[in-house]
């Protein structure tokens, strides 16, 4: 269960959006209107998410239990923060996610930020550990000395 849905959730933004949708569906349980759940599913949830949920709800499980289970599964995903010097396309992100999933062996959510100081390479934070593999870090002593030299020469 949930694998179909979770396979398409690869970033923290995706997860946050899905959580919002789950919350809307959970709230519908307290509405007195007839078919409130279905109405919410069709109006406040993205089409592919609604389809995936509907497909899985055909099995014998109540919507409340299903949604709670989905939230629990989402919480299990560790987040990996990545700082890169370009704005990645969806394809790039998927590629990075697949590689990380293969290497780490656990489901992860990517939190990609655009950081021009990286220049090339990346900054990664995972499980509280921080690694700086950026070219910016390598070049910073050189840049600092050049800037100093320029200031002393021309300023």
């Amino acid at each position, binding site marked *: 269960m949930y694998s179909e849905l979770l396979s398409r959730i690869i970033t923290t933004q995706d997860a946050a959006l899905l959580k919002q949708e789950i919350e809307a569906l959970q709230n519908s349980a307290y509405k007195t209107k007839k078919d409130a759940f279905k109405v919410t599913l069709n109006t406040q949830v993205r089409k592919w998410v609604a389809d995936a949920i509907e497909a899985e709800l055909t099995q014998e499980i109540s919507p409340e239990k299903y949604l709670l289970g989905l939230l629990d599964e989402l919480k299990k995903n560790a987040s990996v*923060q990545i700082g890169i010097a370009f704005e990645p396309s969806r394809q790039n992100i998927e590629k990075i996610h697949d590689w990380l999933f293969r290497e780490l062996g656990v489901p992860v959510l990517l939190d990609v930020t655009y950081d021009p100081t990286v220049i090339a390479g990346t900054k990664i*934070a995972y*499980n*509280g*550990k*921080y*690694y*700086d593999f950026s070219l910016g*870090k390598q070049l910073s002593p050189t840049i600092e000395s050049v800037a100093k030299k320029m200031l002393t020469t021309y300023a």
Partner: protein
Amino acid sequence: MHDYNYYLEKSGEIGYVDQVVKSIVYAHGLPTIRPGEMVMFETGQIGYILGINKESVEILLLSPTAVVVGTKLTRTLSGLKIKVDEKYLGKTISSLDFEKDLFVLDEDPDARAVDKTVMAFSQRQKITDPLETGVSLVDLIVPLGKGQRELIIGDRKTGKSQFLLQTVKAQAKRDYICVYALIAKPLLEIQRVKDYFKTEGLDKNSVIVASHSIDRPGLVFLTPYVAMTIAEYFRDQGKDVLLILDDLTTHARYYREVMLLAKRFPGRSSYPGDIFYVHARLIERAGKFTKGSITCLPVAQSVLSDLSGYIQSNLMSMTDGHILFDNDLFDQGRRPAINPFLSVTRVGGQTQTPLVKEVSRSLRTLLVSFEKVKQFKHFQTELSEATRNIFDLGSRIVTFMDQLPSVIVPVPINIVLYAGLQAALWQSSSMEDMKQEMSIVIELYHKNEAYQKMITSLVAETKKLDDLIAKVNSDENILLKHLQANRVAKPTEPEPTPAPAATQTQNPETQQPAQPVPVDQKIVPKADKPVGKS
């Protein structure tokens, strides 16, 4: 202090703020963080690790600006340390300076941990030297020793702070280092203490550590620890330090606030279970050591003179006695309003010389007798002569003990004045005249070095109170000569009616013409009222 990126690079660990509850921040990440470590947020604030849970760390925010959920933070790999040096003498370190100048987050051999374990027993020494407060009642009846921890307890507005300032004044003039911690005080009060230090010229060897009542509870909580660390710095240089913690009941209230926010289980009066440990581990850092000493005077505020409060009784049990400021005595006009019967000093007695001990014992006995006969005072003439004498001497002793906050009375002159009282020197003087004459003698003691030397050697050479009384009564005594000289200098007054016989023989010398006194030794009373005749 470096920036966030420096510490992030150094530690290689990152965390994210999940929740902010007033000054408590919950964050996840930082896998190898330790309790007591400092963290830095990407927005520049600093925090102190209070506790570690399975999924999050609890951080006590120390910076005045708030952090928001999602903010990154990193370890600094450093505990809470401060760097102290001589330059802090004469300064007021406010809580804003803690973050800017005082806290050290880097490797520095001179930095000192704010929260450290107490010094080992082998490095401690027996308290043998007295610490003069300049307050007659304390120095004679509830004496303090160098390295003692004495609780100052009393209701608000009963003169505790005034007594503390008097003590600082008495000690700062003896080259003691005085560290005054003002915990969560209003700005006005901090300014008042600052002004006092400045006007009295005490700032050259004193430090004020102050936190305001509007500061972050974390900073208020750290104030006494910072003050103690500064005191330890000077102690390690072999100096004697007087540390005042004003006051620990407020400190406990702020700690309670922090701990309740951190969801710690509340105990008695909602204080956390470790409140005793929090104070004991602080006060235990004071004492007399092989090198230097820290005399600690923590203050506790009581409510309606109730000494059985949780924090008050905790503090009583971890100090070497207490000085009680009594609301009733204050209302009766006694200054300082110290209750000598309910005040305790556990180690002060061992610092006294045999003569001072005898004076102390005699004073206590007299005061007890006076308290007993006080209830019969309305019988007046029907009282026996002995009772009347006790009442008269007791009243004079109470007047003798009454002291203005600006007056410092050193122990030797205290003893001589007491001997004078016992010798019935002021038997026929009115209370006002007696007090004025005593003030003249005290002023003379402060101003005239020869006189000071004479009194000090007189007290040092005398072993028994009776001998001192005899000497004070004798013709050669300068105390008497000066009194006579001042009395003679006044316009002639009608002969006073003979007073009832005192317990001691009245001094016949007072009736004789005075010896001439050198001009530089003459003291002219400030008041317009003439000094009374004997």
